[in-house]
């Protein structure tokens, strides 16, 4: 194509009445001089306002990954099970018997910070659509949430509103919540995190990708009408929160899970019947990003007539229609002769499907409105040519100093009493208050619900199941991003393996502050290096995910929080292993090595008021051996229970296994003797250190010899620590020449009541959001 032909193809005129493009207007659209210069060069002219809006959305951090792309390319993304790696709406891994699993995690942090109920609800809606547009039926959702401490009323309000929003949406659509995590730390007070993950099942043969193809094929808009909500949501997600962010409330979309459910059923019917060529959710940046990304993936152009898009109100401009983030909308590509069939399917699900444009062969992203071409941009360059940045990275001196420091204050309480205080810490305590608001049994396939190490569901009609989890210990990442990144993957994999499942793959939600600050970019780069190394070691490729930068507020940046969502395969569902001790007389064993590493521990944080110290290094080989051992022991039916040893350390893990599940009739006691365990390790570190690569398991007496033998052959250190005691008995512990004992009923009460007690506060408005 000659340059003059390009110039002709990209002619466009302002929409009547729209503002003139000025430097101020460019700045308002969060485009810098370099970016604007590239736009002018690309078009050979000044962009129209409509085009400026399009670039602003697609070149936002949220859509373009302009600060993260080079780092993300270092993740391992291939493997024998990978059907679809990063770059699509969701990643897909191969399962047995022709099945596949599609899964993805995404953040909805900024909307939730200003409007917790709708922000969280629409976060769930978006991630469901990402999965069912691959042709997969959603079978599980998980979420990873972070808030400031619950003693602040605002944090209680945000926590209650987010949980209600997540629940109301997922419950209505009928997707069980199988797990999640909730953390509390001061850094999240101004900027909570809401990360939602969805897992879907499909026949591998039904997989559909979001690539527009075939000149003359038709673009159809399906689902809700387009309104003025959520305009510039993608840009909002790409800036720091400030006092002015409250004014962004109208930019938060409003969810309608009922329409979502209809859209889900209609989409799956359209996909499995082969009626459509491609499908994509209108998520962040709405019609703009869905149409531009589908065109770029297929290497084609598109032409859209915004006047044809069904709108909620009269007089919407092309700019508003293109950038609206109204929820529950899909963009389809189909051959012209199939349109009436498609419309019939949609009508049956009480939805409309409206033709709004077509696929073209000239590679131009073109928008018309009432005959006027208001945007004409080379399509591939629109998506791919955003400048990529390689920001400076430098570790914060203060972070280095914190890592080298040790606590100066004496413990608040005695070593024995510290256990109760830790179980009463909201980050460690039971999250029953949260997960009882989420339907966890709909679809009648839940094998292990929330409250264990990982959720487990069976795949109907087969003998196998999936284990699912989300994890991140952000305190470790803040202190040491590389080891913390490794630890997030290691903990997720341990949780999966504790249920007996083999870790298969990862989706990640990388929540960080402003990447233009060298200390933040350092955290990001190093955490990603840790994630990549761990994923390579465990053979769990990264199949997709989401980057959320600019998680900063006037109270500062969040703790870096690279949340790891992981999928595991349980070859036979009946081999599942629960987290809690099962029967009196069973033997309790500690797997892995204890060195007493207290750096970054919950004990130092809560009991000695100190966040710092060298974090425990993650020995990836030891982790991998532990995972393989747990899977093999589950297959051989040697385990009665297995529980990951993580935040709070060994004693908290033992206590959690003893207090029982939320629905156990009674807790159990235990008699533990650690006198011969890790001799030479100080008592504080022995009980509360957070060495990685450990698990607390229990086994029937007749299985112990075989289990110990398996540990030897697999190279996993094992210590026979004691026995499960009677129902409601005492938890007794001998260690360091001392004898400790706790009533298991008291521990159970503390563990389960910690969050409800704090949320009973009268300022928690239970009707928030309705």
């Amino acid at each position, binding site marked *: 194509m000659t340059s003059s032909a390009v110039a002709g193809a990209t002619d466009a005129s302002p929409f009547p009445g729209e503002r003139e493009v000025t430097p101020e207007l460019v700045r308002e659209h969060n485009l810098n001089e370099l970016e604007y210069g590239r736009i002018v060069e690309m078009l050979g002219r000044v962009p129209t306002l409509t085009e400026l809006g399009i670039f602003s959305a697609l070149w936002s951090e949220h859509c373009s990954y302009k600060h993260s792309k080079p780092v993300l390319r270092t993740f391992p993304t291939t493997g024998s099970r990978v059907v679809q790696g990063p770059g699509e709406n969701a990643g897909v891994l191969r399962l047995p018997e022709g099945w596949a699993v599609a899964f993805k995690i995404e953040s909805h942090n900024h909307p939730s910070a200003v409007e917790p109920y709708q922000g969280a609800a629409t976060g769930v809606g978006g991630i469901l659509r990402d999965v069912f547009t691959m042709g997969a039926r959603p079978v599980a959702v998980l979420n990873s949430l972070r808030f400031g401490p619950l003693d602040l009323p605002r944090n209680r309000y945000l926590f209650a509103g987010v949980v*209600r929003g997540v*629940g*109301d949406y997922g*419950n*209505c*659509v*009928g997707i069980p919540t199988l797990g999640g995590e909730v953390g509390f730390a001061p850094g999240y007070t101004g900027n909570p995190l809401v990360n939602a993950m969805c897992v879907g099942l499909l026949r591998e043969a039904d997989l559909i990708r979001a690539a527009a193809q075939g000149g003359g094929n038709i673009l159809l808009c399906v689902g809700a009408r387009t309104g003025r909500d959520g305009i510039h949501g993608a840009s909002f997600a790409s800036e720091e929160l400030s006092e002015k962010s409250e004014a962004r409330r109208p930019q938060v979309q409003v969810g*309608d*899970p*009922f*329409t979502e*459910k*209809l859209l889900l059923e209609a989409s799956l019917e359209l996909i499995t019947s082969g009626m459509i060529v491609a499908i994509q959710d209108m998520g962040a940046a709405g019609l703009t990003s869905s149409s531009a990304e589908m065109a770029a993936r297929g290497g084609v152009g598109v032409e859209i007539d915004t006047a044809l898009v069904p709108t909620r109100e009269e007089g919407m401009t092309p700019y508003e229609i293109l950038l609206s983030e109204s929820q529950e909308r899909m963009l389809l590509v189909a051959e012209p002769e199939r349109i009436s069939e498609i419309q019939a399917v949609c009508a*049956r*699900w*009480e939805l409309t499907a409206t033709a709004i444009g077509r696929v073209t062969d000239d590679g131009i992203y073109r928008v018309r409105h009432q005959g006027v071409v208001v945007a004409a941009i080379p399509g591939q360059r629109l998506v791919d040519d955003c400048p990529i940045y390689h920001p400076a990275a430098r570790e914060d001196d203060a972070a280095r100093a914190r890592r080298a420091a040790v606590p100066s204050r004496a413990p608040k309480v005695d070593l024995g009493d510290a256990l109760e205080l830790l179980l009463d810490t909201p980050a460690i305590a039971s999250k029953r208050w949260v*997960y*009882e*608001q*989420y*339907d*966890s*049994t*709909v*679809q*009648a*396939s*839940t*094998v292990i619900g929330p409250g264990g190490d990982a959720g487990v569901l*069976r795949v*109907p009609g087969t003998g196998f199941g999936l284990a699912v989890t989300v994890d991140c210990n952000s305190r470790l990442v803040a202190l040491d991003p590389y080891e913390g990144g490794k630890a997030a993957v290691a903990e997720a994999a341990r949780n999966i393996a504790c249920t007996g499942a083999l870790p298969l793959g990862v989706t990640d939600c990388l929540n960080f502050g402003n990447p233009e600050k060298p200390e933040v970019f350092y955290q990001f780069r190093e955490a990603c290096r840790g994630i990549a190394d761990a994923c390579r070691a465990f053979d769990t490729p990264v199949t997709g995910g989401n980057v959320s930068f600019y998680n900063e507020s006037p109270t500062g940046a969040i703790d870096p929080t690279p949340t790891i969502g992981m999928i595991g395969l349980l070859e036979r*569902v*009946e081999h599942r292993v629960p987290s809690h001790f099962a029967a009196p007389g069973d033997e309790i064993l500690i797997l892995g090595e204890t060195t007493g590493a207290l750096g970054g521990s919950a004990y130092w944080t809560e009991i000695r008021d100190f966040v710092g110290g060298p974090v425990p290094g993650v020995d990836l080989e030891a982790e991998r051996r532990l995972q393989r051992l747990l899977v093999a022991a589950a297959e051989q039916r040697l385990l009665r229970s297995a529980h990951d040893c993580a935040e709070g350390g060994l004693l908290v893990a033992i206590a959690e296994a003893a207090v029982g599940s*939320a*629905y*156990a*009739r*009674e807790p159990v006691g235990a008699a533990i003797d650690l006198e011969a365990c890790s001799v030479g390790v100080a008592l504080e570190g022995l009980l509360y250190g957070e060495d990685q690569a450990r698990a607390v398991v229990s086994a029937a007496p007749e299985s112990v010899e075989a289990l110990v033998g398996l540990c030897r052959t697999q190279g996993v250190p094992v210590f026979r620590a004691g026995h499960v005691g009677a129902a409601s008995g005492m938890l007794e512990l001998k260690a360091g020449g001392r004898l400790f004992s706790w009533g298991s009923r008291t521990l159970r009460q503390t563990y389960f009541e910690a969050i409800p007690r704090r949320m009973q506060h009268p300022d928690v408005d*239970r*009707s928030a959001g309705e």
Partner: protein
Amino acid sequence: MLNVAVVRFPGSNCDGDALRAAEQVGANAYFVWHRDTGLDGADIVLLPGGFSYGDYLRAGAIARFSPIMQAVQRHAAAGGPVLGICNGFQILCEAHLLPGALLRNAGLTFVSKPVDVVVEQTATAFTSAYEPGARLRLPVAHGDGRYVAAPDTLRLLEAEGRVVLRYVPSSEGSPFQPNPNGSANHIAGIANGLGNVVGIMPHPERAADSMLGAGDGLGFFTSMDAKVPSP
């Protein structure tokens, strides 16, 4: 073979679970759409859980006007068995096939957890397989499950033995709070006077498979028979 129609409303989300549970006991189970006007020769009708019409206006309030509900009314009037689970129970109350109403849970939040219930009436179309007084552990998952009725209606329900399921009182050692939603008289499910129409809040279809570690709900489906046992 028993023909079991599972009614799908827009927003039903336990329709597939109910269908599978019915199939598991050997029934010929199939879906009927809310716009259909006939039940295709169904012996038994299941109204599954979910959020028909998004629970907009009030749970079940719009679904009762669906065309299929006229066929369900005729089927029930002729003595045909109808089981409403969760949202299905709400629809049966809205359609006046059962008395009373289901309001927002007393705790004001959605409640999802297992509960212990007692089968108080086995002379119904869906509980004949249980022993009287049988104790079941079944999941609940609802935001609007607080059963209320006028005092006279409650007295009548109790006098006529039409309380089918009742949440176990805490004094009987259930590890759960006795009543997850504040229902009057701890009622978890009721029947009409003939015992052919039953509405319950717990989900037996999610507890009908030992693989999931829960088989207590299976009896609702093995009880299914074209005839209703006489009280």
